[in-house]
């Protein structure tokens, strides 16, 4: 009995600790961003919006945010197109090596980003591509593609393709059947994989660092440079904005597929 009680107590303690441990950095950042102190004092001596006001005049911040948004949007769009086609081939095809191909397509998630970045930097140099912005766009598709392939592949494996035949029997043309049966069924998979791919591209540091120059910087690169040069709560204010964005993404994800399915691994 005592052993069982002990095990149960450990379990609930670990659960409590996990929630507090994981939420602490986010809460601390948000608290600091609304404080008046410039040295991260907690609890802040007074509340203020000065760090948010300072964002407007922070040099380099808005261009880097714009660059990150553009790159993430481009990379996600390309990944959704290429990844969906590929997932269809892997689920519907009967050619050999499908499992190996699927593993290869998600492998960028499992290898060190820094090494992938270095390899791409040298590869691009070797073929004469020196333009930073195009390199950044091309590189980020490698970051986003695995997310799309993984999620859409899983969703397609559960999709009953005879529904398309049923729709055609009932008078739909083939493209119309695809649009009215398959696309709505895969909608949640497109949206969640697109969302996670977008966030992964927005957040990427180790690959982006090799494709930046004085004019083209993504948000994480610019932010890390700030933290190293003049650490003040301005970064906390940006972070608070990104936390808000993540909360919105979580709410959207919960509505679309539910929290429990987002935790599927």
């Amino acid at each position, binding site marked *: 009995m005592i052993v069982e009680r002990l095990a149960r107590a450990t379990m609930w303690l670990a659960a409590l600790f996990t929630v507090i441990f994981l939420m602490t950095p986010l809460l601390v950042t948000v608290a*600091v961003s609304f404080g008046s102190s410039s040295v991260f004092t907690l609890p802040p001596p007074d509340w203020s919006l000065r760090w948010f006001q300072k964002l407007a005049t922070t040099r380099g911040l808005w261009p880097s945010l714009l660059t990150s948004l553009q790159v993430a949007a481009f990379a996600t769009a390309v990944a959704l197109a290429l990844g969906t086609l590929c997932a269809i081939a892997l689920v519907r095809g009967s050619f050999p090596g499908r499992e190996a191909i699927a593993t290869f397509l998600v492998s960028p998630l499992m290898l060190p980003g820094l090494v992938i970045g270095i390899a791409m930097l040298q590869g691009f140099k070797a073929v004469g591509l020196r333009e930073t912005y195009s390199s950044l766009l091309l590189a980020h598709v490698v970051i986003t593609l695995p997310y799309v392939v993984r999620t859409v592949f899983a969703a397609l494996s559960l999709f009953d393709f005879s529904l398309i035949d049923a729709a055609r029997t009932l008078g739909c043309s083939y493209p119309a059947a695809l649009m009215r049966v398959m696309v709505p069924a895969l909608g949640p998979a497109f949206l969640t994989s697109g969302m996670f791919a977008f966030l992964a591209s927005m957040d990427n540091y180790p690959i982006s660092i090799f494709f930046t120059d004085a004019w083209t910087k993504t948000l994480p690169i610019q932010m890390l440079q700030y933290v190293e040069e003049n650490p003040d709560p301005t970064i906390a204010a940006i972070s608070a904005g990104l936390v808000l*964005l993540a909360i919105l993404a979580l709410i959207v994800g919960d509505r679309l597929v539910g929290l429990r399915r987002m935790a599927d691994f």
Partner: protein
Amino acid sequence: MNGLSRWRDPVALLAVPALVYLVALYALPLLWLLAKSFVGPGGITLAPYADFFADPFNWRVVTNTLSIALWVTAVCLVIGYPASFALARAGAGLQIAMLVAIILPLSIGVVVKAFAWQIVLRRDGVVSQFMMAIGLWDEPQRLLFTETGLVLGAANIFLPFMILPIYSVVKLIDPRLDEAGATLGATPVYRFLRVTLPLTLPGVVSGIAFVFSMSVSMYVIPSLLIGDRFQTLSTLTGRSFLFMRNEQLGSTTAVILLALAVGIVVGSSWLARRLGSTS
């Protein structure tokens, strides 16, 4: 279908664009990096690796990398294993709180989280205040720029990748198995060791593989939480390319890092398959 006509499956063509893209922009550059690291001015050579391992400083870098990764993985496992049981068996309220706490940080960038830990680990930070409040510390201490601080910060950032794979196997375990064991007279410890633990091992293996490989290759977290004084393979690789302009050293460490990562992926999937076939 015979061998040749299977290749002519027209659906296969849909996979071609994504495959060509990844082969050209990802696989070939990686292979090229690998190949180049074995080619010296006089042909094929192992000299860069021999030089690298001849330097005691570099051995220090390798042991730093592995020991930090082991610590981070151990901390994540100790917290994550019981926490994933709680997640699977909690009531609706706690389960939602846990899911939010686990999934929300996943959609926030590593720069934001590592910066947050810079604040948390300061001398006047939350950890220091907490340790004083519960009476473990007599005076405030700075954990920032120490190994302990790095392990805490990295374990926090990678914890979800330990909990989620274990949770995904724990939620499939039939609770009646445990009751059956109890009815047959097995002690709780025996039931855990012979029934529950073996069933969760595949999840544990993939959790450990995720956390260990991410800890080995982390770059932003050590840069912000410990600084240049403590080099790992990953920070040394980054520094060689970005600051020292020493591409030779950088390529060597990059290939070692790559070999470690591939070894972990291959080893863990082999282990997971073995565990899957025996249980």
